[in-house]
């Protein structure tokens, strides 16, 4: 049997087996040092090299080039994680193709060997290959042209700032609050002391849990529709809005903000966002229309108690999860 053909089968069949049977084993939920996708890829490469060496297949240069190029394609398309956008994929593949070309043109001998089957196909020494290639290529070109011209529309991409710059002061219910120096009046004690306390049950026993219970009550009457029962921004209406509601579990939201910032955002909502970096399109209500000042502060207290985050304060570097 033709050795080049065997080599080709080793590649194709091997890829099929590896991709369908072995790849799933190497992509478990808990990624380990051995069981991860890159180890899998190295194993596949090792398999190819070893099989070709042991069987002394010595595939022609053109085919080796095809294998190398194919490995790059496979890596960027299926192995690399997280998946990359197609523009980046094209960029990487261009570089990979240049690399492959450098590999085959490293000396005149390999380059000539690489060219040989191509030339033979063109001049018709490989008659069947010539017929197939010369008919298939124009058809492909026709289809590609069709696909390029066929109009397709995708919704425009919209960029926005995640955290708007807050104003220096905010006026809620007739009172002006300087954002930098305002603290939550209901944060009467160290939050961590109440990690294992019970809302409602402990509300009579201590002041802090009373405020948390009241804040939670307001949250679950008003906010959970969007921000969710788990405060993860996945409430029952969350899928409707764009941008999606904030996820308070995420370390990038309330964990890195001061309580006064939250107070401003909750009070003024979407309509109170500054004009720069629009469009905001936020569905967040200006809660001063529905809630009293105290109620807003209690909701904020509750959000930190529930998620275990600590609000950012001056003098500390950031926040830690409780």
């Amino acid at each position, binding site marked *: 049997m033709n050795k080049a053909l065997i080599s080709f089968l080793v590649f194709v069949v091997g890829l099929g087996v590896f991709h369908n049977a072995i790849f799933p084993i190497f992509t478990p939920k808990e990624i380990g040092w051995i069981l991860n996708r890159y180890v899998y890829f190295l194993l596949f490469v090792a398999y190819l090299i070893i099989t070709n060496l042991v069987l002394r297949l010595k595939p022609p240069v053109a085919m080796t080039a095809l294998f190398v190029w194919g490995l790059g394609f496979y890596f960027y398309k299926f192995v690399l994680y997280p998946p990359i956008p197609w523009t980046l994929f094209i960029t990487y593949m261009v570089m990979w193709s240049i690399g492959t070309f450098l590999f085959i043109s490293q000396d005149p001998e390999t380059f000539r060997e690489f060219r040989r089957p191509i030339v033979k196909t063109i001049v018709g020494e490989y008659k069947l290959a010539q017929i197939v290639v010369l008919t298939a290529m124009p058809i492909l070109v*026709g289809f590609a042209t069709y696909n390029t011209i066929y109009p397709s529309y995708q919704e425009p991409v919209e960029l926005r700032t995640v955290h708007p710059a807050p104003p220096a002061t905010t006026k809620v219910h007739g009172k002006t609050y300087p954002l930098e120096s305002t603290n939550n009046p209901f944060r009467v004690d160290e939050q961590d002391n109440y990690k294992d306390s019970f809302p409602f049950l402990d509300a009579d026993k201590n002041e802090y849990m009373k405020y948390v219970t009241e804040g939670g009550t307001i949250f679950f009457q008003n906010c959970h529709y969007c921000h969710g029962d788990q405060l993860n921004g996945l409430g029952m*209406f969350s899928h409707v809005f764009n941008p999606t509601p904030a996820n308070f579990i995420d370390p990038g939201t309330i964990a890195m903000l001061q309580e006064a910032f939250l107070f401003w955002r909750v009070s003024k909502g979407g309509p109170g966002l500054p004009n720069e970096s629009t469009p905001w399109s936020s569905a967040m209500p200006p809660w001063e229309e529905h809630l009293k000042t105290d109620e807003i502060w209690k909701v904020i207290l509750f959000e930190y108690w529930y998620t275990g985050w600590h609000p950012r304060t001056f003098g500390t570097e950031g926040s830690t999860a409780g």
Partner: protein
Amino acid sequence: MNLRLLINLKHMGMKMTKNTNKIKRLIFSFLAVALIAIPTSAFAAMPDPIKKDMLETGKKVYFKRCVWCHGVEGGGDGPSADRLFTRPRNFIQGTFKIRVTDSGELPMDINLINTVKNGLQGSAMPAWGEFLSENEILSVVQFVKSLVQDRDFSDEDEEVNNVITGIAADNGKGPLGDAPWAATKGPYHLGIPQEHVDAGKELFIKNKCFECHGGEGRGDGNPTMKDDWGFPIVAANWQQCWNFRGARRDAYNPFVIARTISTGLNGTPMPNFREQLTGTERWQVAAFVNSLCPRKKIDPLTNKPIPDFLIQSVYTEGPVVPKIDDPSWASSDTDDRIVPASEEQKENPKRHHIAMAGQITRGKRNFDPKADNLWITSRWSAEENAVYYLVEYDQRFMSSDPEYPDAVAIQWPAKLQDLFGAEKPYFINGDSKKPVDIWKASFLAQDYNATNAPKPEGYKLEVNVEETVGYGFDAIKAKESEAKVQVVDSIFHQGRVKVMFKRDLKTDGEFDVQIPTEQFIPVSFLQWSGRDKEKDEHMAISTWYYTILKPALPASLYYMPPIMAVIFVAFQGWLVWMTKRTRKMYDEGKVKRDELPK
């Protein structure tokens, strides 16, 4: 399982050697009752008793995560309860909907665990499987069981029969067993043979499922139903299976339906159908119900279909046919990337899915919207210089009150030309600087009564079109210019409202949106359910979407590909000729082949 009961009793008896005859007599009478009971409930099991050692952890989890909806004593009366439809579960009676046990029976632990892990789709109950640890979930389930007051999980009189896989499924017409078809395909569970769907439809009619679920399964059968606690309740809408409570995050799986038909839903008017239907027949009804649900890509985080954020209006040669049931408007709700459109519908506009929520932001807020989504289909015609939008949505029951008609509206930026970049007006009726143009159709169904039997030909709508300019959620003004928006066709058909809007692309009105072609235009939708007394800003609302009037397919699409192919053929010919010529020159020695270094 009564065997275990016997052993338990014997065990108890041994421990109570010092006890009086009275207790002994009691034990013996229990034994006697148990022995008599054996023939009828030979395969029944006892419910899983409460694991007392887990209650402490369970209580902590419950009071941090669950109490807000389910209440301090588990009465389903937490702070959020009054603003939720459906209300949170009241645990006190031990009535649980999603089980594998017989109607009226307590659930098994695994049923409750799965409910906590997967949530109850279409309600406020989220999936806790990724949020709580396994131990926390097991514990909170035990704690929830301890909140049941009216029944006792360790009561000898309680029994649970697994009617899905247990032997006890032999009650009635036999076990559910395996589906009568080979495995379904993929996450959308496609490929159930049509014969089973057809058989299921016949059983659906024979067993009068439509009395509650409506003629096409949109839950529009009976407006007067109540649950065990006297709260209003509606039948499931089969065309929105992602809202099935027991979907377990696998909405398209027909097993979900077969299970519910086998167990009924405790606390609701939904009975089980094991007396009427064999296992195979239950699967067939499930196949029919399942076939009604459009296949859409489901967002794994929210368990709702991903909205189609770009509404594509299809260019129409000549005038558009202004008839909803015209074949040129026929499209499937199913995504054509999942199930390809049929040959006749291939060129028709797609049906776009618009997610709706209650307007809970400003003024009078709507916490329980009755429409979950809208479906939009659109065509435009250069010859008529007009655009058509067909708006459809599922509405179980319509209003009969002229004071509160049903209504749906399309909202546009009134001054599209003044918007910069991605700027848009405020999504609720615009704002003072960026007004919106609102096309609102209000309607009442003629000769309609919510308690009527399903009417296959549907109800005509008496439509009133109103054009207004919005400057804010509470600042809506009538337009001074001549009204240009028409509703050209409309119907209320088997629980679905269909309204077709038409307007000229360009008008003279100062606040009329001037609709360009080939350009992204922000658009959003508003909807009012009259029966729910919705009016003004008390409505359902979508966020901003985009619409685009797609141009006709360019003529170059037909001549460019062959031209390019011919050019390429010519290039190939040149390449072959060149290569051959070079060879010949080598062979004849005119040119030297590049020599390799020695």
